[in-house]
């Protein structure tokens, strides 16, 4: 090989290794590292991320789901199975006459399109930013009310040991997709109780940027609340 630089074989070696070394130092000690350290660190996911579903509650602990099956009707993969039942008079499960007696989602069928979230009239079902759902058998992928329903504090259930990887801090924030598709998501509704967060109870902060929108962009003058 002709030595075109005139530094000799050893010089070429050091020159090449210098590049490697510079990159090494830049990645390890500087800002050049592009690799996300996933199991150790979570990537910050967008607000409208379509992750695992949860069934929400009202602040008083009542379930939001009324078993209307609109989510099941909207689902293009037909992965949702809902059955309604009469609310027991003495211990109502949800406000009103009817509650979701059976609620099952086959996560392996689900395509995470969010049409169920759009269809839900009570914002009972929302996406979270949880994405860790891998299972070793098909039965575990069918999430029933036990897995879907948030607990009294609004935290989704721990299902598997692997849930240790979940970032539960993120769940306190609003579900962007629900905001983006429901009338209640408009800026005019900020602070309403129905603005519960994706995975919990009570009033949550809105999706970033939503409340800064000009009035007309939000279209929400409150009229269609009736």
């Amino acid at each position, binding site marked *: 090989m002709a030595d075109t630089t005139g530094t000799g074989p050893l010089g070429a070696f050091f020159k090449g290794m210098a590049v490697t070394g510079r990159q090494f130092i830049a990645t390890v000690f500087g800002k050049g590292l592009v690799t996300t350290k*996933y199991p150790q660190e979570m990537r910050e996911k967008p607000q409208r991320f379509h992750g695992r579903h949860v069934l929400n509650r009202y602040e008083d602990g009542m379930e939001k789901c009324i078993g209307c099956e609109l989510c099941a009707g909207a689902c293009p993969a037909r992965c949702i199975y809902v059955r309604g039942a009469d609310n027991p008079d003495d211990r109502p499960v949800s406000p009103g006459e009817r509650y979701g007696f059976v609620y099952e989602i086959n996560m392996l069928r689900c395509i*995470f399109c969010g049409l169920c979230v759009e269809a839900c009239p009570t914002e009972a079902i929302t996406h979270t930013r949880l*994405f860790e759902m*891998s299972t*070793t*058998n098909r039965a575990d992928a069918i999430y029933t009310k036990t897995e879907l329903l948030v607990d009294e504090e609004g935290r989704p259930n721990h299902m598997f040991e692997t849930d240790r990887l979940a970032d539960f801090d993120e769940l306190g924030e609003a579900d962007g997709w629900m905001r983006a598709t429901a009338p209640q998501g408009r800026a005019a509704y900020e602070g309403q109780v129905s603005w519960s967060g994706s995975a919990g109870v009570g009033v949550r902060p809105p999706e970033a940027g939503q409340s800064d929108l000009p009035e007309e962009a939000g279209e929400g003058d409150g009229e269609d609340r009736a």
Partner: protein
Amino acid sequence: MARLSTPPHLLTTTLGKAMRWAQTRSMWPATFGLACCAIEMMAAGTAHHDLARFGMEVFRASPRQADLMIVAGRVSQKMAPVLRQVYDQMADPKWVISMGACASTGGMFNNYALVQGVDQVVPVDVYVPGCPPGPQSLIHGILTLQDKVMSGELAR
């Protein structure tokens, strides 16, 4: 295949652990991208997610050199025998990850053209829900697989 963890003698358990550790840390995937999930699978191999961290960056085009088949995408009825053949050509020990809704159950394509779940064709070890699952979801699936292999549950 008998599990290496039985009977529980000191030497064999320790050796078994070592073998399983070796298996999990060099699980080479076969390239089996079938649809959009494959894009995410490829993304998982890029620098951003860097499957090399788990010793898995070497996607092998030859099934003989692969340990793990990631079925990434919808499996048509015509692809099913091909898929099975590739699986059969892989050397033991071998594992299968069914990536995404279509591979796992057919997803929204509940029709005659698609296999409604690749587990009808090959034994699946880990199912990864998602449409498509992001690279991190896939990595979670891989970690699940590695956990299970390490614990002896899926050891071959």
